[in-house]
């Protein structure tokens, strides 16, 4: 059953990855990165149970924190940095 959950998470990661690669706007990418981070948290949690040592959940916890900070940082610089006022990428 952990295998099924794992496959579900992996598929989601792949789909989010494709969206992050395709764009087309900066915000799509940020959304995809944020979602990818959440899926990584789930992956680590499930992986612990799959390998039989679930006590390393501190890792998943740190991913939640860092993922949030990363998203806010990208947003801050995209939106309030000195360039790139619109969401449309020029190239």
């Amino acid at each position, binding site marked *: 059953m952990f295998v099924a959950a794992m496959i579900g998470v992996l598929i989601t990661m792949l789909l989010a990855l494709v969206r992050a690669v395709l764009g087309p706007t900066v915000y799509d990418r940020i959304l995809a990165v944020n979602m990818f981070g959440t899926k990584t948290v789930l992956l680590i949690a499930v992986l612990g149970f799959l*390998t039989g*040592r679930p006590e390393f959940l501190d890792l998943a916890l740190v991913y939640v924190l860092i993922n949030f900070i990363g998203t806010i940082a990208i947003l801050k610089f995209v939106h309030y940095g000195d360039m790139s006022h619109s969401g449309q990428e020029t190239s």
Partner: protein
Amino acid sequence: MSDFWGLYNYWIAIFLMMVGFYNVIARGNLIKKLIGLNIFQTSVFLLYISMGKVEGGSAPIVGAGISSFSNPLPHVLILTAIVVGVATTSVGLALVVRIKEAYGTIEEDELIAQESVTQ
């Protein structure tokens, strides 16, 4: 076939290293070069950690009922290397900022053009 999966991790590490290498030597943008250098660096981390893995082993932290552990030595080396890596990358980025302030560009070909004019 077992050869393929047995060496798959190393090959991916080499692939990443070459992608990073290409970005460093072929791209003109200094930030892109540093990103390439980062990829190159993480590929080395991946190689080390892959070599430390033992089939059926577990994370090298003593726990009840666990007897087989992966090799902790590469973990120690890479753990410190990651933090040192980001510190040295930041020095590179600081240099990029200074180059931008001095020359107004961070594209390699434009930098070379400016340099040749002044000479």
